[in-house]
């Protein structure tokens, strides 16, 4: 059974579907200061979405959420797991366990009860969010993803699981995006959070490594995210950092 040498190795990551969070998490994977364990990456967990353009792969590694292989009980963490069970559920998909940090990505962390449970049980851990308006998120998700035909599945967002593109599934998706978006926004309102746009200079502050992988992930983010349908960057999907002060204690 894998163990954590320090509970703070778990970094919780949360946003609503279509926010571009998966792409942005790949940027975090290139930041030395986050020092992320990437042993959850497997060939079957790589996804280019509806467009199928392998240049724009944006899902890599594990995503935890209800009705998926991992995080089945994440709709109500406190009711479904003890703290130890939750830690094991977070660590299960990783092939290697070391002193690096684990980025645990779940849309359902957005539920207020889950965020409160996380802070209560892991008061020193970092939580990173991505904020984006529900309209562009819905458009982004429906342009690139399906409920069951691409990785990861979005069965927990479906009303009728027997038909993938049933109109009421999209209605349910829209409602959940709005609900979770509002929950995140209200939760961070009076908490100590930095809301920061992911530009190059800021990534450098996080120790971004400009090797082949770093350049590739950055280019993908620029082309498919910040410049989607526009000539100048939108800056419409900032990171929110909670409990991350140590990231910013650098003078340049």
């Amino acid at each position: 059974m894998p163990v954590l040498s320090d509970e703070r190795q778990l970094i919780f990551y949360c946003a609503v579907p279509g926010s571009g969070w998966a792409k942005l998490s790949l940027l975090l994977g290139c930041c030395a200061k986050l020092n992320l364990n990437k042993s959850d990456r497997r060939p079957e967990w790589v996804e280019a979405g509806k467009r199928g353009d392998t240049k724009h792969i944006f899902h890599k590694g594990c995503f935890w959420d209800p009705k998926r292989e991992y995080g089945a009980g994440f709709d109500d963490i406190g009711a479904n797991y003890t703290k130890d069970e939750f830690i094991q559920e977070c660590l299960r998909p990783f092939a290697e366990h070391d002193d690096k940090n684990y980025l645990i990505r779940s849309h359902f962390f957005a539920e207020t009860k889950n965020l409160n449970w996380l802070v209560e049980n892991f008061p020193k851990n970092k939580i990173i969010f991505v904020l984006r308006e529900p309209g562009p998120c819905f458009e982004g998700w429906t342009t690139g993803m399906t409920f069951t035909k691409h990785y990861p599945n979005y069965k927990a967002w479906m009303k009728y699981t027997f038909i993938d593109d049933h109109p009421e599934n999209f209605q349910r998706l829209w409602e959940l995006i709005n609900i979770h978006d509002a929950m995140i926004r209200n939760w961070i309102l009076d908490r100590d959070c930095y809301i920061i746009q992911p530009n190059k200079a800021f990534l450098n502050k996080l120790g971004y490594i400009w090797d082949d992988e770093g350049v590739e992930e950055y280019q993908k983010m620029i082309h498919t995210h910040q410049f989607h349908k526009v000539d100048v960057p939108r800056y419409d999907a900032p990171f929110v950092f909670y409990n991350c002060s140590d990231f910013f204690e650098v003078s340049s």
Partner: protein
Amino acid sequence: MIRDDQIVFFLGIPGSGWAKIDSLLRCCRKFKFNESDINEDTIWQRNTNRYYLNHKGHFLGPGSGVGEGFKDIGANYTKESFLEECLKVYKDVNDKDNYMLKCHWFCERHNINWLIRNFPDSKYVAVLRDVELCNHRWLESMTFNKDYPNYSAWMVKEDPDEKFGSHCIENEQNFRKLNRQHDTELRSFVRRYADIIFCPTKYILDRMDFQWDEKGHHEFTWYKRCYISDTNLYTRAPRYETSIAFYNCNEILF
């Protein structure tokens, strides 16, 4: 004469909430802004059903009385004459304070390039907000030449019957066109130069040593009401739709 590093160029398009951000930054001790540009002639406010406006201090640029040639700074000024023109709005000029210089027309690409070339050691602060939200806010709550500051430089036609929320179509179209252009050019600048871009939350303001006195609370409360609070009954969640980009400000932020 003041040093270049005392100057903070402040950029934003109309309706972006830059005046409110200006008020917030003036409450930050680390910026140590000189406020001798504020007097009874440079304070103005309006509360519409939807928007609260509170303009304080100077606004430079054509139509404002100072900076009439700022549509093309390089063609109309030397570095010295430009600075002399800008500082006319301050009663007290010393070598200790920082001086915010605020003008929408700084957003023009040729002006930004001129500023960066001539004032490489100055600080730059840019306010970013979705251009459609900016258009709506400004067109619903301001007039071109009946309020403070004066926006006659955005007009292409006289409009004596103008009221806030009701403008002649030619002026409105020109406003939208200029706002789109300035937004594009401002974002290009931010992309090239910004060190960091963040939303002004309480925590970030604290990093800049925000003074939580009566004035500070007042400014932050109104900022929240105007730019964070959501009036949509369905969602009721803060929007965080305004970002501030900083260049050459690391000593203040980190």
